[in-house]
């Protein structure tokens, strides 16, 4: 792995219909870390990872991965989109979907071969879905569908992963299985950025946290960043004012 940071973001601004969703994001991510992106709804968590991969138009700023623009290193980047982003009635099998993880590396005109199938099988094995390889994807539970996406990402054999709520709609056992796979990837020196919405587990799961609310509130080791003040500022806005007012009211002498 090169000394270049796997992900460097400089002054990134993304807007929907001219209304900014992300504002001047600066970020330099160290390699080999499992990083949680947390923040309230509408904080721009998904927007951030989509903008990094060029799926959304960027108003200003730049993103570099391994010191290069995304298009140059797309094959080194893996992606787990939100489960709701696709039609699960689509006529494909589990195996077909996992093989799509190989398409980027194969490039145009080449078909997935025996080695690719072998790899896809081992990825399915890792998420305990091998018995389901030939099923149509509609015949899976939500947690299994989430693991299909994870297996596809594994098949990408990327050095940097973006995952958009991989734990949404899965049961506790599946969540444990997924986090085990993510840690294994991290231990192999890969870098993972995971959008997450559950605070208590975020503290256990991630080496570092990115607290995001339209801009970077804090980024650092979980133990340093997971503090009441920083979380308050992240989930702030109206809530902060309300709680400040509530606190002020509580400090007042009760009228007798």
């Amino acid at each position: 792995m090169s000394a270049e940071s796997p992900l460097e973001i400089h002054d990134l601004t993304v807007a929907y219909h001219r209304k900014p969703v992300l504002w001047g994001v600066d970020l330099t991510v160290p390699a080999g870390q499992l990083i949680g992106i947390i923040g309230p709804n509408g904080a721009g968590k998904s927007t951030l990872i989509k903008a990094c991969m060029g799926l959304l138009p960027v108003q200003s700023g730049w993103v570099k991965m391994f010191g290069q623009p995304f298009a140059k290193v797309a094959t080194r980047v893996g992606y787990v989109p939100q489960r709701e982003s696709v039609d699960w009635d689509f006529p494909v099998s589990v195996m077909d979907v996992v093989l799509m993880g190989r398409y980027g590396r194969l490039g145009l005109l080449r078909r997935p071969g025996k080695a690719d199938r072998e790899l896809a099988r081992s990825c399915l094995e890792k998420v305990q879905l091998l018995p389901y390889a030939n099923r149509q994807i509609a015949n899976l539970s939500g947690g299994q569908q989430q693991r299909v996406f994870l297996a596809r990402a594994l098949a990408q054999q990327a050095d940097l992963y973006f995952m958009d709520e991989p734990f949404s709609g899965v049961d506790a056992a599946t969540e444990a299985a997924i986090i085990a796979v993510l840690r294994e990837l991290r231990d192999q020196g890969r870098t993972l950025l995971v959008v997450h919405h559950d605070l208590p587990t975020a503290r256990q799961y991630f080496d570092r946290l990115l607290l995001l609310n339209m801009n970077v509130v804090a980024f650092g080791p979980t133990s340093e960043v997971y503090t009441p003040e920083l979380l308050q500022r992240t989930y702030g806005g109206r809530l902060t004012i309300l709680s400040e007012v509530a606190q002020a009211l509580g400090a007042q002498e009760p009228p007798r």
Partner: protein
Amino acid sequence: MSSNRTWSSDPAGRATVHAGRWLGLALLLLAAGVAPVRAAGIGDLVEINWVEQAARFFTFQDATVRYALLGSILLGLSCGLLGSFLVVRKMALVGDALSHAVLPGVALGFLWNLSKDPLAIFIGAMIAGLVGTALVSAITRTTRLKEDAALGLVLASFFAAGICLVTMIQQLPTGNKSGIDKFLFGQAAALGPDDIALMGTVTGIALVLVTLFYKELLATSFDPGFSRASGLPSRWIHHGLMLLLAAAVVIALQAVGVVLVSAMLITPAAAAYLLTDRLHRLVLLASAFGVAAGVSGAFLSFVGPSLPTGPLMVLGASFVFGLAFFFAPRHGVISRWWRRRTGAARTRRENTLKSMFHVWEAGGFRAEGVTLTELAEKRRETLEDAQRLGSALVRHELATLSGDVLYFTPAGKQRAGEIVRNHRLWELYLTNSAGMAPDHVHEDAERIEHVLGETVVRALERRLDYARVDPHGRNIPTPREIHRDAGLTDESKRRERP
């Protein structure tokens, strides 16, 4: 007909009048079988019967027939092939808009040198189609309107412009002999060698490109975001597909007509969608259905009275869809109904077995048989009902009937034990683990007992510490008892826990 006559200056109206007049007659003639019919313009105007006409069609004596048939095959193939991707990408309306938007281009292509030059018309139509789709995406990008509204808007306005242009052309001195009106409802007979060459080229290119880029088409159709993120040229694939679709629409125009060409894109693919769960099979099936629809349309139009080819092709495709809708093995209406019905019959049989078990249990497992009267009493039904239920068991070899006494077969006894066990286990599970009151659990167990698989039963047993008594104080039969009662061999006992 006088009310219709006001329409007859309009090509669409004329075809409608034609179709209307001949439709009733066609049915009569088909019933009569041998009555003389007029060749539908594909042949000449000789009066011959339909058997001879069919023979003429299949021996390809006339060049017109050959061209019409070849053209129908090519357009069915290209429309089925490309329509598959339209359907799985949920862009069916785009196909509709595209086909209507090409009409002004057809007219302008004709005006280019006032002749039906296939290439000029092809280029004009392609340009119009692409301008139309570009307008749709421009409207959705720059306004708050969503795609469906934009499609409807572009479709209608382009089509209106096209109709006006076509009518103008027909009013030209040479116009009414031009055959430009054929573009509205289509006539395979109007196809010439130049048209066929163009259709062959387009279909060939479509086949080659879809084969080469199948992987990309699959990935971008299923998950566009992921495809772009993994570096696949999603946008190029999309534009390429639109270009091919426009070309397929244009070559199909003359045979199917502007109004119905989108049906040739969507219907075969929709039928295939009901029949398979894999995209490559869907594409192959849709292409085959497209060809079948094309051929049957050309054939019927040739043998039958002068009905336009396009609508007949579309009816052929719709017929295939109808078959798929009713008879598809997994998603079809009939097969779903059949599965439900057989499921209900099985449940009924299992309930009968359960009642027999209850009677047997109440008698202390002594009396070997259960009389029909006992069964009827247990189930609070008439003797006739009990007789019917009993003979259903006999038919499925779950019991034998001698006189009016029912005896379990080994298979019947085992199934009865399993059902009772499932019922009582589930009741116990609901009261113990889900904290439901014992008098609330029976109804639920009545449904669940029929669907519990062996693995779930094992898990339940473990969960409940192999309990022996249900919430109502009755014994839960163990696998050992069930096997012993059923008189099964030691072989099956080895799987049990010690």
